[in-house]
């Protein structure tokens, strides 16, 4: 490209010396060349170039062109659904095998048009929603086009609405699918089961062992842990724009908006309306709408016309009564409006009930208690109602609002059954994003005081101060609960002293040589650490007494999920500069402890090394500073708890400035530390550090009590 451009630039300079005849010829030629080049460039940089389009590999065809399959009248029928089916009996899990990504593979049969012997179609070829559903699966990570690798098969035969199909012939169509094999690992989606007069609560099409994702299961037809109960999709979800309305009290306490309500129940509702005229609104079909007004979008009370589904946003609770079918599309509209559904449908299996906690978003009332519904709802505390309103809207957003959401939630549920060790948790399914964000899940949540006998492992990070290191080793080895000493030798240019030169101590001493001089080596989860408690100590901390260290370990046992350390520090908000500031003066508050001398649970080493957010770990190693602040952030963020500073203040030899010496550098040091706090707060997206006004001392510290009877007499000596 470059070369040719060069020639082209030079080209025109030659032209004036040529004959006119040739000139025209050449100009034409060059214009062609230039045009070609421009065209190339345009193709190259066109934003939606053909090559990058995801649609490239997708067939573009007409539904009318799909192949026609003739089903002979006598072709085999599957058996009726087996009610005793469970995953471990009817599902062939071997097809799913082991997948390192823990994702099932789903195959979709290609679309066919089925006709009977006389050429009459068996059903509508495919509905808009089923096409949307298959598209969603096809676009997802679950999809495979390789039938031999698939674990789950989705027929393209549309059975969403039983009323639109011929039952026997549809079953025959299913049975002739290439991998049908009694329906094993086949998944059918149905939203409107049954038909007049008895309205079965599950699809009537015989389907043998196939799994059914059905909208409207009852306890009698639902195979727990095998079928999936799904919502009945409300087409209004896509048609009407309904902005979110926050929780809180609304104009009506209770609303009923359904049109086909059994007379007996309508009587009950009307009685409620009569009793609580102000707070209950019972709507019905409009009888006197003018031509052209879409009656689906209107509801009426006597002559008052209300817009649907907008009116749902005016009510706190909305009744969702069963009709002939248990599953009602109204549920979706109600959830969307942030109206708490009051579900009156005995034995109905709520959508996705295997994973969704409907107690948080709905009230289930037995049908025979419909007349008491007002009193039942009044008994729910207001705060809980608001919580339910928020939860309702969240359920709609996550699992109801589109066909795609419904399809993916269904596959996720089946996936969770097959790879239970990788399944989504209750919180992941049920907590709205705001709750997920604000809540803390402490990795060490069990209240537990570990046994003293376990002891702790001291980890000394050192570079070359051998003399000081040996003193630290000697001092620490006097602590009764020390069980092992680990020296992290961070100097690659120098070998550690010979074995014979090391102090002789009563516990095992191990030296770990590191590959690089990095501060994060201090927090590496070494295999040598066998105890839960770790004491991180610098190679120049010789001023801590044995009593102080032993007491520190005892305090850690009472707070095993916290950083328990000696020198404390504080972060402050600098109003002038509008940023965080590091404070090491004598303050009444503490929010960090220095890891130059601190006890903590070894799990935090794992977190520091493998789960530190953002680039903090590399940043610390590059700056050779602030690894302790990073650790304080990490622990406070994951546990939501403050540090514990133990024992009175001591004169530490500026324990945090091991890298630099001299007082003149102190100022730069503080600035750098402040920068660390600001940097980490921005990476964590919050300020996790907690400020407290207490420290831990022995029970009898400075009390008028014989010193020799105190457990930890030698505390606080300077």
């Amino acid at each position, binding site marked *: 490209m470059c070369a040719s451009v060069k020639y082209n630039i030079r080209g025109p300079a030659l032209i004036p010396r040529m004959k006119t005849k040739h000139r025209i010829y050449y100009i034409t030629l060059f214009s062609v060349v230039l045009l070609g080049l421009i065209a*190339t460039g345009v193709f190259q940089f066109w934003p939606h170039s053909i090559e990058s389009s995801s649609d490239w590999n997708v067939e573009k*065809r007409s*539904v009318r062109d799909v192949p026609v399959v003739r089903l002979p009248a006598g072709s085999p029928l599957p058996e009726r659904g087996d009610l005793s089916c469970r995953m471990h009996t009817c599902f062939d899990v071997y097809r799913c095998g082991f997948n390192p990504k823990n994702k099932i593979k789903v195959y979709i049969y290609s679309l066919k048009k089925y006709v009977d012997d006389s050429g009459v179609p068996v059903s509508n070829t495919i509905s808009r929603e089923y096409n949307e559903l298959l598209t969603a699966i096809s676009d997802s990570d679950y999809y495979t086009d390789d039938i031999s690798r698939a674990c789950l098969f989705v027929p393209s035969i549309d059975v969403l609405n039983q009323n639109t199909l011929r039952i026997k012939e549809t079953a025959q169509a299913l049975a002739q699918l290439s991998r049908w094999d009694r329906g094993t690992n086949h998944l059918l989606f149905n939203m409107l089961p049954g038909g007049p007069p008895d*309205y079965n609560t599950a699809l009537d099409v015989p389907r043998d062992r196939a799994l059914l994702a059905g909208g409207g299961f009852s*306890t009698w037809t639902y195979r727990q842990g095998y079928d999936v109960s799904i919502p009945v999709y409300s087409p209004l979800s896509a048609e009407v724009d309904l902005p979110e309305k926050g929780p809180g009290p609304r104009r009506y306490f209770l609303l009923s908006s359904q049109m086909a309500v059994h007379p007996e129940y309508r009587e009950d509702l009307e009685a409620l309306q009569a009793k609580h005229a102000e707070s209950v609104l019972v709507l019905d079909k409009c009888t006197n709408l003018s031509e052209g007004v879409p009656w689906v979008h209107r509801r009426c009370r006597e002559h008052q016309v209300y817009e649907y589904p907008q009116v749902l946003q005016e009510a706190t609770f909305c009744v969702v009564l069963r009709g002939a079918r248990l599953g009602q599309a109204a549920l979706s509209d109600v959830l969307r409006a942030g109206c708490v559904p009051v579900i009156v449908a005995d034995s109905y299996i709520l959508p996705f009930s295997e994973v969704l906690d409907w107690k948080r978003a709905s009230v289930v009332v037995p049908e025979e208690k419909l007349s008491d519904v007002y009193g039942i709802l009044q008994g729910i505390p207001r705060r809980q109602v608001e919580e339910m309103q928020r939860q309702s809207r969240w359920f709609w957003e996550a699992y109801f609002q589109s066909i795609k959401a419904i399809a993916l939630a269904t596959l996720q549920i089946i996936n969770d059954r097959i790879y239970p060790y990788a399944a989504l948790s209750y919180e992941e399914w049920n907590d709205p994003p705001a709750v997920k964000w604000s809540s803390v899940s402490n990795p060490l949540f069990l209240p537990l005081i570990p046994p003293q006998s376990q002891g702790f492992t001291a980890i000394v990070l050192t570079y070359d101060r051998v003399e000081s290191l040996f003193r630290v080793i000697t001092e620490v080895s006097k602590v009764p609960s020390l069980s092992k000493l680990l020296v992290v030798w961070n100097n690659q240019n120098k070998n550690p002293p010979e074995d014979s030169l090391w102090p002789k101590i009563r516990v095992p001493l191990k030296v770990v040589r590191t590959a690089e001089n990095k501060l994060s080596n201090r927090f590496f989860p070494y295999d040598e650490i066998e105890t839960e408690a770790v004491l991180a100590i610098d190679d120049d901390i010789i001023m801590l007494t044995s009593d102080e260290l032993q007491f520190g370990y005892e305090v850690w046992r009472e707070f095993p999920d916290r950083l328990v350390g000696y020198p404390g520090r504080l972060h402050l908000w600098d109003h002038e500069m509008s940023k965080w500031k590091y404070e090491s003066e004598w303050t009444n508050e503490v929010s960090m402890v220095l890891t130059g001398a601190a006890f903590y649970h070894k799990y935090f080493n794992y977190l520091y090394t493998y789960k530190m957010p953002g680039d903090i770990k590399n940043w610390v190693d590059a700056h050779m500073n602030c690894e302790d602040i990073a650790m304080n952030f990490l622990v406070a963020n994951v546990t939501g708890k403050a540090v514990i500073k133990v024992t009175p*203040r001591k004169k530490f030899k500026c324990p945090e400035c091991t890298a630099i010496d001299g007082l003149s550098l102190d100022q730069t040091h503080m600035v750098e530390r402040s920068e660390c706090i600001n940097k980490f707060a921005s990476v964590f997206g919050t300020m996790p550090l907690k400020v407290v006004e207490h420290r831990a001392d022995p*029970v009898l510290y400075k009390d008028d009590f014989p010193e020799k009877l105190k457990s930890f007499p030698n505390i606080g000596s300077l």
Partner: protein
Amino acid sequence: MQSWRRKSLRLALSASWLLVLLRVFPLLRLTVPARPRAGAPQGWPRWLDLELLQSFSQPGELPEDDPQPPPAPRGDSCDWGACFDVSKCRGGGLKVFAYPVAGPISDTQRGILASIESSRFGSVSPDEACLLLLLSLEAPAGECSPLPQQWNSGRNHLVLGLHPNFCPQTFQLGQAMVAKASPTVDTFRPGFDVALPLLPEAHPWRGGAPGQLGQHSPHPGVPLLALAEERGGWRTAGTEFSACPRDGHCEQDHGPEQTHPGATLPNATFCLIPARHPDALHFLQALQAGCIPVLLSPRWELPFSEVIDWTKAAIVADERLPFQVLAALREMPATRVLALRQQTQFLWDAYFSSVEKVIHTTLEIIQDRIFGAPAHSSLLWNSPPGALLALPTFSTSPSDFPFYHLQRGSRPAGRFSALIWVGAPGQPPLKLIQVVAGSQHCAQILVLWSSEKPPPSRWPKTAVPLTVLAGQRKASDRFFPHRALSTDAILSLDAQSSLTTSEVDFAFVVWQSFPERMVGFLTWSHFWDEARGDWGHTAEKANEFSMVLTSAAFYHRYYHTLFTHSLPKALRTLADEAPSCVDVLMNSLVAAVTKLPPIKVPYGKQRLEASPPLAPGGPDPQPPAQDCINQMVAEFGYMPLVSSRLRLDPVLFKDPVSVLRKKYRSLEKP
């Protein structure tokens, strides 16, 4: 010259043409094919006539459903809405009547009946009860007790059996709910029946052994896996499972393995439990041991599956894929292992360690169904301290309880109510009122007047509202959930207590960091008296403590509700008879909930010597109710108190810095 030019021109031209051809032609080639290349994944087609597709349901079709009358419950199948009459439970809430057992009665059965009677659900007459409980005999077939008179085809009845094999009256169950051990998935009716754990013969009926987990994370040396054996023991294996054939049995010895005798608990990170029925017993053993149960296609319903989220404590895997399961276990992230382990212990302690807990959990589940919406949330069931200790009658919102603030990222409110108990001497605590009212965190002062003398008509003017409540002159009245207690924090005081405002302020700030614990000034400790063979407690100064005196302590108001509604009646009576026992009871109650010691904050020693000790029992270091602590242990079934060796002081407490720098300087006055 000319030819050179022409040559170079021609060269330039051909180069340009070549370039154009090279760049444009592939594009042309790519735009041409109408069919996708073979081998590339083919998705679902994008239909050209997508717009023509019709909706699965025509507008109006859904509402046009023929309204149908409600179906009658089908045959012998039942569910909660159809077969339980909730209206009987309105008003009094869940009241349970247990039919007396005819004939010889076993210890466990006696225990069950006693624990129902003593619980807050207990009822003496079958007429006022809304749930009638029939204890199923584990008798050999044919010796079933006759159905009781009030049977009413089983409506509002619960048939309870701690063993999976009922006597053959099962087919007559009618509309009764069944609570039995390890029911098979096929007969279990979710939301109606209750799945119980399969308990061993010698399961303690109260208290129960604590979980075996000594530390949060697995010890590095511990084997990864233990396999439940048919004989009842456990076989542990190292990290190599290649020897385990498909059915999950490891027949050959590979690596370090050992077989444990039946009684011992497994010591491993994961406990593999095959599908066979009696292995439900192994399940509880694994829970107690803190060994994560890996259930291979269990055919039985997991205990209390209606409320317990077992995915947080166990792994249910497919027995047909043993290698995949083992690989997944090996690769499980440390974070998940840590969480699962801890959850097993929490569940064991909260719901399974004794027969009483199992029974109470069963009743609590049924009560939750009756409550409908305002019942325990999943969070309350599945995080410490568990639903039995979080009473839904107190609140349904987790942030009202002292335990869930951290998980929810919330904080307790920043004010407290001082509750001053005025006992027999009847001296109005005027000085104390001024001290407490001086605290910036004080919201109100409540004086609980429990003296024979009438309260004075005039009280000092204070910055905060002061209310006088008429007490009932019973020690347990101190911990009654008075309506006036509106703040989360309570500062419990005696008329004789002597504090400074600084001490109150500091203690409250500490309590805000530990809202689930008691924060106090004066301490007692408990000890095991070898000579007498029982527990004792002392007020002597010591290096550790396990109780703080309620004559000056901060705690959450929820503990009043718990004290009044959850503590066994016998213990509340004990408190009234021996007033100094209330401290032991309150501390034990809080410790039983939190499993943690209380917190001590500094207390000026000069007054400790000058005034008589705050203990109502007088200067005697051994308070009079010696038996109090032992009765408490008997009722709890274990010793709940936990010792602490630390005191929380202000950060600069007695440090050699200028006193002007210190916020709580008056705490240090000599």
